Structures are given as C-alpha cells and as structure tokens.
C-alpha cells in the first residue's frame, strides 16, 4: 500500500470559530499515525492541491459547512470545471477537475462537510459544532478503515 493511498485534506480558518473544523479533523487524524494515509490542511483549497491529490487513490476533503445536514454529510463528488466566484480559493470539485486536466489522474473524491454555526474572530468551536465534530471524526475513522481494506 502506498503511503498516500488516501489523502485527507482539511481546509478552513481556525481563527474563525467553526470554520476551523476541517483542519481540526486533520490534526486529530495525524495523531492516529494510520499507515497509507497522507494529510494536509490549509486555509483554503487552491490550485496546488491538484498536484497534492494526484498521487492518491482516494481523496477526502473535510470542510465546515453552513448548510450541510446535521451533524455532517459525506458525499462522493464528481469533477467540475465550475469555478466559484471566489477563486482565490477553489471548490473540491474544481481541484479534482484540474488534477484530471493536468495530470490525467482522477482519484475517487469525497467531501466530509461538517455543519458549523459560528464564524466570528475567535478560536474554538461552538458547542453544537463540537458535537458534530466528534460524530464526524468517528465516522471518518470507520470510513478510512473500510477504504483501506478495499484498496
């Protein structure tokens, strides 16, 4: 199994309350030292992530969401050339599309969207988001184990 069979990428700004849910998931996951998992986190997704995901079989993007169903949603995504209007950042779908266009590789991609509620200048999650985080993390661990067994 490759060291980066599954690539987990959390994104968001931990200085903006629940917006930091994605990086927090990655921080916790890194402590597990699971073989076959590569991780990264940043404020936002951007074009270099097309390169980062190109060597993996499966990619899981983890982000806070203002509209996901509670406590979280987990969905497979398809590549999309649609560029969000704030293209100082990119959507997970467009990162995958760019990866295909540049590298000819199409990792299986998913988004774990954790419902958040508060977005002010502060660190730490709202209570409801913290509960969602814990449930999402348990789910993610199970899902990763399941995926690793099938690779």
């Amino acid at each position, binding site marked *: 199994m490759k060291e980066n069979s599954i690539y987990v990428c959390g994104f968001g700004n*931990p200085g903006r309350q629940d917006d930091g849910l994605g990086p927090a998931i990655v921080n916790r996951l890194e402590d597990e030292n699971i073989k076959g998992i590569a991780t990264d986190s940043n404020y936002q997704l951007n074009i270099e992530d097309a390169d980062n995901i190109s060597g993996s079989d499966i990619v899981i993007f983890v982000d806070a969401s203002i509209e996901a169903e509670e406590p979280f949603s987990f969905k497979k995504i398809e590549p999309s050339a649609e560029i969000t*209007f704030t*293209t100082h950042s990119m959507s997970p779908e467009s990162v995958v599309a760019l990866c295909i266009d540049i590298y000819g590789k199409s990792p299986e991609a998913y988004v774990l969207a954790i419902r958040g509620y508060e977005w002010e200048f502060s660190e730490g999650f709202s209570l409801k988001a913290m509960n969602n985080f814990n449930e999402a993390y348990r789910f993610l661990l199970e899902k990763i184990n399941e995926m690793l067994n099938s690779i």
Partner: protein
Amino acid sequence: MGRKITIEPVTRVEGHGKVTIQLDDAGNVAQSRLHIVEFRGFERFVQGRPYWEAPVLVQRLCGICPVSHHLAAAKALDVIVGAGTGDGLTPTGEKMRRLMHYGQMFQSHALHFFHLASPDLLFGADGDPAIRNVIGVALEHKDLAVQGVMMRKFGQEIIRATAGKKIHGTGAIPGGINKNLSIEERDEFLKGADPLNIDKMIDWAQAAVDFFKDYHSKNTDYIDNFSVFPSSHLSIVRKDGAMDLYHGVLRCIDADGNKLLDDIDYQDYYKHIGEEVRNWSYMKFPYLRKLGMEKGWYTVGPLARCNTADFIPTPLAQKELEIFKAYTKGKPNHMSMHMHWARLIELLHSAEVMKELLNDPDLQKDDLVTKGTKQKEGVGLLEAPRGTLFHHYRINDLDQIEMANLIVSTTNNNEPMNRGVNYVANEVFNGQKEISEGMMNKVEMVIRAYDPCLSCATHALGQMPLEVTMVDSDGTVLSQRRK
C-alpha cells in the same frame, strides 16, 4: 426610467464586493460605485489582548495573505519591544522574514497571473465563461497551468519552512523569528527535484514575463487602452530608491512622476495619510493629507511599485523594469492592464531574491531575536502582494493592545478601483440596452487587475453565491440571476 445594474459579488476576487452601475433615462452611465464589505471589527477585537499575540491573531483576518499580516504586525511589535524599525533585527531574523515575505509574494503573484488574469488574456473578455477560468487554461494551455500550480506550491513550501506551518504560522515574533532554516530545508529549495527548485522557478518567472510581453505585442490596443487614468502612486522603497518589498521609506509620486512624499519614516505615516469615510461604502478612502481628500488619493500595488522605484536590485527583474519604464518614456505608467506586467516583473524579482537568500549562510545561524527598551507604540509597514499594508499598535502598562489601526492594501486602492470601474462602465455600458456577460466581465476585469482581497477569511461551503441584479431608478428589480 433609469436603470441600476448590480453585479454582486464580483467574481474571482475575495469576499463580498458589489458593483452598482446607475444608468440614466437615456441609458448612459450616470454613476458607478464599487461597494466592498470590509471587516472593521478586527481592530476592536485585538484591543485588550497581549501584544505578543498580534502576529498570530492578525492571521485570522485573511486566508489569502495571512503572511503579510503576520509580518506587518511583527514589524510594528519590533518597535514596541525596542528592536528598531526594520534595521535592528539580527541578520538571521531579518533574512528569514524576508524569505517568508518573498515566498508569499511569489506564490500570490503566480496564483494571480495563472489563475485569475491569464484566463482574461487567453480567452478575452467575451470568451465563453465556461472555460474562462483556470480549468480552461489547463485544457488549452497545459504548460501554463502546470507552471502556475508548481510555482504556487513552491511559494507555499517556502512559507511552511519559514513560518513553521501553513495555517497560523508563528515564525515571526516581536524582535525576530523563532526558527532558522536548516540545511536540509535549504537544499530542498536549492536542489529539489525538477521542477520544485529555485532555478526552475526563476526560469518560469522569466517565461511568464516573456509571455506577457509577447501577448502585449500582439494585443497592444487591448492592453494599453483598457482603463487608463492618471493617478498618484505610493509604496515603500529602499532608502536609495530601490524596490524593497519588505522594508523601506514611504515614497509617493504624482501622475507626472513628481515626488509628493519621499524618504518618509513610516512611523510617522499618520502625519501624511488620512482616512476618509463615505456614507455609501463600508471601506475607508485613504488620502495624502497635503493634497486633501479630493485630490489626495493614490494607487498601491505592483504598478505603483514599478512606478515609484528607481531600480530593482536583482539583475533579471531590473532588465525587465528598464523595458517597462522605457515603454512610457520614464513617466509613470497609468494603464490598468499593465498591472499584470508589473506583477510579473515582481514575480521574477521575488524568485531572484529567494535564491539570494537561500544561498546566504546567515539563514543557518542561531541569533534569532533582538531585545531592547520597550516602547508604547509601533508601526509596521510592508509591501504586500496587493500593495502597501499598514499595521499600527499602541499598548498600555499591562502590555495589552489598547489601540490598533490597520490600512490594508485593498483599502488603499479603494478610490482607484472605483475610478477604474467608472472608466470601464463609461466605455462599455453607455447606450447599451442588453447587458452581456462580456460587458460584466470587463467591469470585473478592471477590479481583478488590482487583485483585491476583500477580507474573506471564512469560506464555509454554501456561502456567498454570485447574484446579478438589475433594478431601475426606483429600486425595482428588473432582473436577477445567480452564478
């Protein structure tokens, strides 16, 4: 009946921006305004916090240029801890910060050109919006897309190595830095596997400048005549007039190149620069006090820096600056699309500076922090990718921040962006009855040339769709669509 056309928010810039174009009864532009929602709460938020937290706290402002805020805050706090105003750090402290800063400039400029600007150049303002983006570039100009990705990645890795991590970096601290660059880290950048090494980055940056010049030679009318209006230009420069993106003295020139400010210690910025509030905008309008609110506005950013600097202290970029300046016969350049040209010259300069720094053995030394006599107040300025960034703090006897004032680059460019929108609106909207995608994109293009960052620090999925709204003079919505 007059019509008001609203583009909200502006595509491909950060955060919330709204363009309103008011048409009169004859269908001509009566007024245009760029509205930007700027967070003003941050300055109050930091009040009461220990001053040493500021370089990390300010990174909450923006997920796009956190390094610029990190370093500007650290520079202000250098003054407060008695480490001087930019010349008092240890060589290792200053050079590590410079490497971080030029890495930030490099990745930001690369992103802007390859991701935001090149689609407008390659596909034109009237190009199919479905492909007028980086995905379209990747499909039709794969080499450019790959270069953009890898240059951005290289800059991000420089930031990681110097700031400690990509999110909420802690590399710069009051009076210095908290880490040096190991030999292993250095060699990764100097001798990394192709293409992730500094020599390849310089080659590609030079190729990007050449790409623009070639495009310009074939599209001279488009590049030279899209939004041209006279402006003053402001930046910091090194004391000898060289371009210096990390530290220097304030210089401002008027539209003809005469110096309005020169050799000004930025600790005194507030004696020279005022901030006007207008009732229709959330964002302030900075101005030179000596010229007043009406005439004192100025432009910052790459075009301003190439206009204010006498020379660039790296050979390849200097050669390009000479070509740039010769194009306007040494006079200030006021062509909005030439901001892309200036940005690429700075991209090349940043790569050259990074190579110089990576070869400097001071980066491996251990003298990281300077201490001195504490002061109550400090100002930190630097040239962020989008222009001059001001951080100003005052602390109390408990070492808490009691006053903070920030003037971000995009705020400095508030008036010129409005003028640019007005110029383009008058060019393309007058007498038009139907509003095409191309017309709207031309308005956005002039804003994008400034690469504004509208304080977007949160980005949670589902936020901020694009809405285009057209209303008449009574406020009645005539049409609306979403992207």
